[in-house]
């Protein structure tokens, strides 16, 4: 069986995927892997793949993503087929990357902006974060006013390319 995993935004297709409560086996990029479960406690696991590794996986957030820690390496991941968050509200998008307060509006509707130019500044955790235009264009809309509280992921401004 084929199965798709998203690790840190990148898609991986694994072949010959088999999973029981005790064993997970698959091949990835031509290499075969097999892991058996030694023990688990809540979100933490000890897995055996010839040597033993420690792993922990958080419950999925509402976008289906979990924080995965495996052998000291940390990543965000999800299993294909579930709803995947499309834009991870990365630095540079016009969505609020986290909840916060509108600190400053630097460009108004109708104004020209260059790609990468800050349009507004969000204040969160006592720090300022520039929300930058993702393209050259004209500001279409500023969705909030200075001082307003916004949720993480809220669209703060729109730019027409």
């Amino acid at each position, binding site marked *: 069986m084929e199965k798709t995993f998203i690790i840190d935004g990148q898609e991986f297709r694994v072949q010959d995927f088999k999973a029981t*409560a005790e064993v997970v086996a698959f091949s990835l990029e031509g290499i075969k892997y097999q*892991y058996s479960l030694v023990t688990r406690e*809540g979100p933490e696991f000890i897995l055996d793949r010839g040597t033993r590794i420690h792993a922990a996986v958080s419950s999925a957030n509402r976008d289906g993503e979990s*924080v995965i820690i495996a052998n*000291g390496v940390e990543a965000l991941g999800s299993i294909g087929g579930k709803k995947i968050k499309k834009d991870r509200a990365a630095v540079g998008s016009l969505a609020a990357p986290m909840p916060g307060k509108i600190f400053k509006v630097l460009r108004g509707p109708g104004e020209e902006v260059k790609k990468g130019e800050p349009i507004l500044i969000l204040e969160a955790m006592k720090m300022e974060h520039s929300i930058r235009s993702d393209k050259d264009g004209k500001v279409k809309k500023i969705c909030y006013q200075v001082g307003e509280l916004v949720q993480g992921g809220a669209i703060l401004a729109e730019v027409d390319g």
Partner: protein
Amino acid sequence: MKIKKILVANRGEIALRVLKTAREMGIKVVTVFADDDRRLPHALYADESYSLGSGSLHDTYLNKAKLIAVAKECGADAIHPGYGFLSENEEFARMVEAAGVIFIGPTPESIVLMGDKIGSKKALEKIHIPLTPGYHGDDQSEDTLSREAKKIGYPVLIKASAGGGGKGMRIVHQDSELLEAIRGAKSEGLKSFSSDRVLIEKYVLNPRHIEVQLMSDTHGNHLHFFERECSIQRRYQKVVEETPAPNMSQELRLRICETAVEIARGINYRGAGTVEFIMAQDGAFYFMEMNTRLQVEHPVTEMVTGHDLVKYQILVAQGDRLPVRQTEIQQKGSAIECRIYAEDPDQNFMPSIGKIERIGAPGLRDVRLDCGFLDGTEVGVNYDPMLAKLVVWGETREIAIEKSIHSLNEVLFLGVKTNRDYLKRILSHPKFVAGKTHTHFIPDNKDDLLPRAHTAQDRADLIAALSFAERRMTTAAAASSHGTASSTPWTALAGFRN
């Protein structure tokens, strides 16, 4: 007078830190909390704990009148301000004492003096404390400026007095560059700020941030607890601190510590304080500022000297003599503190929020995790993103580094993105390992500190972990749909979300 009950006017790990020592001394502790903090441990584990309501910081943790009212109402003898918040607020210190409550900290006069960056330097100049050499005079002739620059010694920084943001700033390394630099700075200053007035300062190349821990009682005893090296900073925020400072001779160590003691004596200081110095690579050091409070990074000093600084703060506040002599304070081994932040170092250090499902505990000896959260508590948007301080002691610096890297893997903070991996990259950087620290370490080694790409093995490990976790989640969900007598929808849900 013996203090019997302390109100801690702070939150998170530092509130718990004070609580712990107070308990060790048989003193009762009262904590306060903003309503969004009501599930954090500082709001749960004190002898008494009171809500400060909700709203902005000024309505809660910075609400001086309310804090004092709580202290009076619950019969606290003393208030410990922690760090940050009201710890260096002289008005609060005065209000506390006017209310007949002991302020566990310096006198309001010391807070005022050291809070004034220019005034403090003037006061220290009088007692011959080394300040960054400079010329700020009115005589702006080229002759005078050249003479002063030579007197300070190269390299020097020529700056437009009215300047900022690097405009009109020149670094001069030798005589031959001097006149041109003065003229350039003057003309740029004139253009940008309508003033051609310049000042000259010693330019410290690759400076180190070295600070000295002080403790003074009200009987004329001023002690130092040695130095801390805090050069690993990102945008003036300390990230990794350690003691003893690496690559420092014992002679220099004692000289800088004794200079700090002279400052405490010179201003008749009281309580815990820290003098921060800027140190050139050749060991010359200059006073930068004094922090009139307990520092975030105080635990490294405690680990290496074996003395409890909060205990001494409390003893001094109740008028006792410090129970140790300078000769009884020794450094043993090496300690490193890593500040664990809820932030994503690979996404421009964006703060992250969310629920911490599992914190994890360090398993090695002489490792301390000062943390203000519990499993299942939320990291919100309203406060500093520091989650915890991992403080590790080792017989040698090399061992302390290795133990720190190991311990960072043990404290998971599963659920929020943290800088743990970034801290590991710093600790394993060859220049850090060699003790070649200076305040530009992070920007200078930016490329080396980027995340390592996942190997094929890493990816397989992550996929396997996720597969097992998914199975657990779906199994729990299936069990809930069968609705056995013992599993109510609530317990099944708890299992699913665990």
